[in-house]
């Protein structure tokens, strides 16, 4: 029982990272009808930004702020350079452009930093606390805390603010939104900035748990992409639930079945969903696309 609780904690912690990246996927998909294959590289770039700032001797919190500001800027550049010039084309050129951008980002970091993985220390000096039978790692606590905050923020932002409603309107019918005077290009810009920051946060938070490497982005993104399918593609709640479920499943799979096949469990679950419930846990809300 103790082990189960311990695994559940770790699983939710890592699942929260997948959830954040998956949320970025979903928000961009809803706004532009395109899957952003560079979403994982957002996490990787943010982690490296963090490493650079910390190595320069900046305080951890300041590095954090700078890294997130850098991600917001990357969101702007990504929107203007990758999405905007192709916005009137079909989804295919845009998807290919995001793949191109992801290759550019990872190879740029490779050229600057080399292939050896970097280590980023955690936010807290204390490694964790013992709560009864369960050891709560401080970094996982931080990840879970930030994710809970962001899920609440996301709900408030999209459901309770006029700007959130304008973003939803834009994702549902761009032409109609523009007829009402909603600046569609601004709404999409905001979506890219928000998604880049979400992906960046995930990267920064998970960096002390994993190594900071060029490949970390694609690993996280693959899991997050699986999470969006498991949760129900295009569904915000589905991305969060799918991410958490995936984290828990692979942690338990690693503990009880096989450690080397840890990454495989995520995709086993994905295949099972694609075969038996392709619409995901929450199903696709078809009506919204009518």
């Amino acid at each position, binding site marked *: 029982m103790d082990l189960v609780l311990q695994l559940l904690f770790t699983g939710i912690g890592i699942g929260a990272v997948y959830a954040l990246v998956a949320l970025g996927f979903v928000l961009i998909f809803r706004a532009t009808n395109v899957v952003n294959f560079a979403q994982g590289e957002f996490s990787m770039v943010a982690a490296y930004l963090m490493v650079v700032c910390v190595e320069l001797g900046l305080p951890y919190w300041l590095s954090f702020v700078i890294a997130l500001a850098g991600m917001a800027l990357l969101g702007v550049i990504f929107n203007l350079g990758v999405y905007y010039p192709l916005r009137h084309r079909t989804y295919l050129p845009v998807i290919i452009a995001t793949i191109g951008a992801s290759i550019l980002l990872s190879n740029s970091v490779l050229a600057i930093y080399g292939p050896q993985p970097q280590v980023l220390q955690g936010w807290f000096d204390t490694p964790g606390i013992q709560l009864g039978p369960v050891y709560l790692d401080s970094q996982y606590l931080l990840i879970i805390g930030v994710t809970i905050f962001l899920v609440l923020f996301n709900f408030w932002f999209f459901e309770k603010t*006029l700007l959130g409603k*304008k973003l939803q309107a834009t994702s549902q019918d761009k032409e109609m939104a523009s007829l009402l005077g*909603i600046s569609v290009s601004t709404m999409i810009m905001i979506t890219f900035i928000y998604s880049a920051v979400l992906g960046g946060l995930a990267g920064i938070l998970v960096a002390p748990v994993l190594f900071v490497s060029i490949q970390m982005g694609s690993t996280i993104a693959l899991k997050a992409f699986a999470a969006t399918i498991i949760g129900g593609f295009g569904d915000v709640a589905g991305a969060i639930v799918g991410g958490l479920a995936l984290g828990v499943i692979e942690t338990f799979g690693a503990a009880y079945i096989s450690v080397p096949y840890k990454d495989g469990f995520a995709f086993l679950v994905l295949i099972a969903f694609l075969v038996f419930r392709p619409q995901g846990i929450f199903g696709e809300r078809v009506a919204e696309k009518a």
Partner: protein
Amino acid sequence: MPLLEIRNLVVRYGEIEALRGVTIAVEQGQVVTLLGANGAGKSTTLRAISGLAKPTSGDIMFDGHSIAGLGPEAIVRLGISHVPEGRRVFPGLTVKENIMLGASNRKVSASQISREADAMFDLFPDIRSFSNVLGWTLSGGQLQMVAVARGLMAKPRLLLLDEPSLGLAPVIVQAVFRIISQIRKDTTVLLVEQNARMGLSVADHGFVLETGRIVLGGKPDELWGNEAIAAAYLGGHAKTHA
């Protein structure tokens, strides 16, 4: 000076010439109805006015200034609100949210917009009880009410209404047209209709479009009076009306 003046408007979609030199004028305070068969260019005319379709040549003057070539976001800020064909109510937003977003062209606070949206239900009492219901659950008539209410939230000087009667039961059509006759007290309206009888019943002036050209224009009585043309363009209603 007319509030809206369209001169020699040509709109091409690739090889297809949807409008081939349309000239119409809408005076302040009027309701003007554009009639014509499917594909005659009625919706394209409205889309060109609101900036959704780019004019190939010709000019569109609103309040004395050319708006041809401006984008839809800029045009709605000038006070032209377009309620497009098919209602286009946001399916994943509630009725009230849809109506509130109609004020996106104006700089007003969210609480002010919320109050105005509540006041809008006085004009549309039938949808008041659906205020918190998602758009996709509504019936055609309800969607049309929401679409018009949303269009009015822009506080337009000119309201473009595209086929408000399309696909609605006769009793609902009458309700929609009652609202149009109420709107006209404050707002100039350019109405596109296939239902000539209803379209002309509220109009001060009518135009008939045929394959991208205006072939006839005049007061509703004159249009009905012209036997040959009434029979050809306005359908069998002409005789029953006379």
